[in-house]
């Protein structure tokens, strides 16, 4: 974990209520896809946890949905604004477990961390499939970005306005077969549906309301088959086999 200041280098609307923010600063604490940062916002007591979508030596990219006052405040930030951020939080995904043909399944605001994971897996020469689920065409983002990495991308929308009509799990059934591993991030009902449908082992990334974000308060603890785990520290990524719903 590192606490440092970042400068907003970009903050653009990607899709309905969905923004991509690029932060310039010291990203040295970020080690793995699936980790998150914890952002202090003026006038809000608690920080906001946001997944690292991508990073380079001096920048971090995040994608966030405006769901409340904090994310709305973030949407109003402009290039040059400064943010105090904790970086390098969470365990992240383990790309080593993927096998040859990993399947990434993301829903809405759960998609961003899968992007850095996909990048890593492609670097590791895997044949990567990604099912990205949205409600409507207006919400779709990063389909091309995944595709340009060389990922086989399947889009699903609940209303069928683009891609396959239905849920991500419908695409799992119909479009996929011999995937070796599952990586998933999205709303809890989606994670559960994926968990139930998945024929492979996998890693699932969870969200929880956080106090500290670095393991001090027990605010984010959840039960697993191997005892209590803190989503901010032993998570947000849990192994399929340990999950208790």
């Amino acid at each position, binding site marked *: 974990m590192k606490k440092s200041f970042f400068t907003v280098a970009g903050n653009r609307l990607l899709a309905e209520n969905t923004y991509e923010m690029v932060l310039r600063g010291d990203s040295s604490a970020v080690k793995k896809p699936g980790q998150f940062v914890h952002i202090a916002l003026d006038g809000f007591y608690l920080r906001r946890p946001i997944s690292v979508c991508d990073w380079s030596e001096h920048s971090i990219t995040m994608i966030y949905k405006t769901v409340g006052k904090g994310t709305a405040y973030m949407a109003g930030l402009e290039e040059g604004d400064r943010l105090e951020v904790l970086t390098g939080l969470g365990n992240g995904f383990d790309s080593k477990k993927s096998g040859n043909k990993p399947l990434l399944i993301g829903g809405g605001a759960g998609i961003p961390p899968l992007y850095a994971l996909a990048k890593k897996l492609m670097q590791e020469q895997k044949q990567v499939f990604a099912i990205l689920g949205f409600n409507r065409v207006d919400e779709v983002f990063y389909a091309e970005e995944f595709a340009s990495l060389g990922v086989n991308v399947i889009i699903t929308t609940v209303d069928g306005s683009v891609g396959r009509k239905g849920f991500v799990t419908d695409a799992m059934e119909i479009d996929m077969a011999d995937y070796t591993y599952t990586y998933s991030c999205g709303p809890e009902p989606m994670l559960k549906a994926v968990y139930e449908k998945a024929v492979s082992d996998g890693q699932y990334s969870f969200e929880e309301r956080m106090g500290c974000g*670095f393991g001090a308060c027990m605010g984010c603890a959840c039960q697993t088959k191997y005892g209590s785990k803190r989503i901010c520290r032993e998570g947000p990524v849990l192994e399929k086999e340990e999950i208790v719903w």
Partner: protein
Amino acid sequence: MVDTSINLSGLHLSNPIIPASGTFGFGYEFAEIYDINILGSFSFKGTTKEPRFGNAAPRIAETHAGMLNAIGLQNPGIDKVISEELPKLKQVFSKPVIANISGFSLEEYAYCCEKIDKEEQVGIIEVNISCPNVHEGGMSFGTSPESAAAVTKAVKAVTSKPVYMKLSPNVTDIAEIAAACEEAGADGISLINTLTGMRIDLKRKKPILNNVTGGLSGPAVLPIALRMVWEVYKKVSIPIIGMGGVSTAEDVIEMMLAGATAVSVGAANLKDPFASKNIIESLPDAMKELGIKKLTDIIGGAHNA
């Protein structure tokens, strides 16, 4: 050079800063980012007889200038704390630590305190009496002078270490309860624990916390904490560990002027992992600015004015 050291029931602390129980775990997370031996001491996560998972999530909600928590005393139980946590802690913290103990019956309190009494690492036992008393209709031990005194006696009977009773602010007359603890033999008073509050999720139209209510802490509660420390200082003569909303060196000085001998820092550690370190480092300058040479000179200072 200003003197930030204080004396707490015979323990010499290089400064009055004591991270508050439940906001500093067993210290390791912080030891990774700074040398926690700069702390006066710290109070470890509230420990009970049995291991506890605590409440279901969500356990945290944001408020204006503060937060609610409903952790529900998650801890590995006193035996594991002694066998696993304390030895690990020893590697990163060489000073006496404050053992925060909770219970749901007099027996549980006594059990834990008797066990912890044997631990050399422990300098002070801080007994949290905000927990509901399972034998008496669930009202917290800290809500009546009688039950507060009963816990004090039960604990004092089994330990020779200094015992600080940690009081709940959710009461009509906190000074009366502090006095009952003093009378029952307490060596000091810690206050305040969190104020019971709640928030409602407007979209789901139900309480945010799974537990419905949680404990409010952070800067929002500072004025209430100061008032309670003030009232308790007037009523008792044993030392006070003051807490509630302290986030800056100035807040520490305000708390000591109200009557605290030492000062705990809670939620601030969660908001900023370096909060306690920053407070300790800025304390000498804040003292100079205000013409304070020796911190112990100002304890209760606002009462004389």
